[in-house]
């Protein structure tokens, strides 16, 4: 060992700190986590760089030729070399469309979870910290929300908005509507978990000592209790991203989500579904595989995270 590594002055970088932490160590030791992370990053990077990677722009009607429709993938006879994964029913390159669709699915999933987290964490913190009547009121609201299934709420909401605004307006703002409805429908998951952790944390003496130091309730909640409740929040977040992607896909599949002109993975699967018996299986199957792999790796990462972070606090 060299002298240099022994000297206390060498400040480790943030990255090497994370790499050498318990979590970093367990990550390296867990091949499932490593592979999942690699696959997830691959999909995510490819999706977000879609405009650079994709050979065609599926949103540009000018680049689509209906005569190119339903070419099979490159390894099936009768394919065209420029469409590696074949084309869909409208003649769009499937590879480009999947890239753009994955980008949409991920975007909706992550934004919806951010909305859920914002709502759920605020409500959970307040309910847990303030307690009493307010707590009962907020938690009963959560119970009521949970007693409707997410899909049911979303279907009703989206069907009503679609009817109210007309299909054109709806299609233009479909992303926003989807994020809002998935975000609002699932906040109780966060609120309940956060409340449970806050109830445990607020009895601890560091909260008393923060009160003794004259901090206000807002500061104690956000600065002292919330950081101590983060690990279950991380775990739920991963699981919820996967759930939100599935919800979005389901809604799009039912025709209540992304329009066929701007397909997400769900609407792509749905549009191919009509052609599956006429032999064009790839329009449904390939986006389906991408969706399953994406959701699977996110769930595997969530499982790993739940095992690493305090498993006792997780009540999913």
């Amino acid at each position, binding site marked *: 060992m060299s002298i240099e590594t022994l000297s206390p002055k060498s400040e480790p970088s943030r990255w090497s700190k994370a790499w050498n932490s318990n979590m970093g160590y367990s990550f390296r030791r867990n091949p499932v986590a490593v592979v999942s992370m690699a696959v997830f990053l691959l999909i995510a990077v490819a999706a977000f760089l879609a405009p650079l990677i994709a050979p065609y722009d599926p949103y540009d009607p000018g680049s689509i030729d209906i005569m190119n429709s339903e070419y099979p993938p490159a390894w099936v006879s009768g394919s065209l070399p420029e469409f590696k994964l074949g084309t869909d029913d409208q003649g769009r390159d499937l590879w480009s469309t999947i890239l753009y669709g994955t980008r949409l699915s991920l975007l909706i999933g992550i934004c919806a979870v951010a909305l859920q987290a914002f709502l759920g964490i605020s409500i959970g913190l307040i309910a847990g910290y303030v307690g009493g009547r307010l707590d009962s009121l907020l938690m009963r609201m959560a119970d009521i929300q949970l007693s409707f299934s997410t899909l049911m709420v979303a279907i009703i909401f989206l069907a009503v908005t679609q009817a109210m605004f007309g299909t054109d307006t709806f299609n233009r703002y479909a992303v926003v509507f989807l994020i809002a409805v998935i975000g609002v429908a699932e906040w109780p998951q966060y609120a309940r978990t956060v409340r449970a952790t806050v109830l445990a944390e607020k009895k601890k*003496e*560091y909260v*008393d*000592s923060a*009160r*003794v*130091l*004259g901090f206000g309730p807002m500061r104690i909640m956000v*600065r002292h209790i919330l*950081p101590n409740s983060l690990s279950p929040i991380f775990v739920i977040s991963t699981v919820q991203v996967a759930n939100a992607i599935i919800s979005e896909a389901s809604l799009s599949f039912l025709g209540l989500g992304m329009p066929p002109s701007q397909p997400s993975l769900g609407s792509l699967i749905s549009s191919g579904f009509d052609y599956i018996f006429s032999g064009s299986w790839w329009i449904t199957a390939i986006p389906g595989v991408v969706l399953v792999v994406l959701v699977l790796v996110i769930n595997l990462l969530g499982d790993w995270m739940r095992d690493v972070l305090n498993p006792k606090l997780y009540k999913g």
Partner: protein
Amino acid sequence: MSLLSVRDLTVKFAMRDETVTALNGISFDLAKGERLGIVGESGAGKSITGFSLMNLLSRPGFIDSGKILFEGEDVVQMNDKRLRNLRGNRMAMIFQDPMVTLNPVLTIGQQMIETLMAHRKLSREEARQIAIVKLREVYIPSPEERLEQYPHELSGGMRQRIIIAIALLLDPQLIIADEPTTALDVTIQADIMELMLELCQSNQVGLILITHDLGVVSQMTERTLVMYAGRIIEAGRTREIINDPQHPYTQGLINALPQQTLPGQRLKQIPGNMPGLTSIPTGCAFNPRCKYATDLCRSRVPEIVHYGEVEVACHEVQRLHSDEDRQEARA
């Protein structure tokens, strides 16, 4: 004018179908820079007293009546904003277990700087400098490095020093220390006590030391209150109370010290337990455990009377002494 004067403080707890009295008519004064000890068994109301002084009781406890005048202002009547200004700034509190008092996810520096910036208009750098000075005052080696560390990286004694430094951060007039050394081992206990004594004396800070350790009280404080079942039963100069306790309960406490017993003998403990808050006996709360109890003790609550150098709440204090005198005369 005294720094703190508590008058007839009564604290109750609202239970499901009744309210129980946790503190019953507590009155005492504390001069500027004075050090006061509060002793008593677990459940006597010592910690509740500490919490009430900062108006920090949370449900189901509440201050029922009485006044807590701190520098002439009544803490009981203060609104939230004034209370926040009081807490940490003019009055600070040190808790029992240093392992759990610091926030585990913030560095020492973040916690200290945040405290300073919440109360004073300071830049981050100024706050950092003050934090370093305060850490030096409590003899923390290389304070600059400690600021970057998390609580779990430090030992128990070190953490309690840091907690003391945080308590002193805003130069409060009064520190309430609730069993500050119970969770530490004996050698560190002595260090911490010495440190607190030194800091209180040099900065003219008042100290209320809540403990059940009579040794610590005799070493640290000038005056002592003895509490039993929510009442003050004896109050006076620490030296008088340790050397010549008047109340049978205080006598029992002192006799129960291991030093009072020869090796091999049983400790002289006080028989029985402290009554629960729901079942305080009528009359003097101590009467079921007291060997001097009379019918008067069982029916009427004793008034606080001056006896010799101290104030004591006991009907029989006169007789007790004449008995002792007689015994001494016989011997």
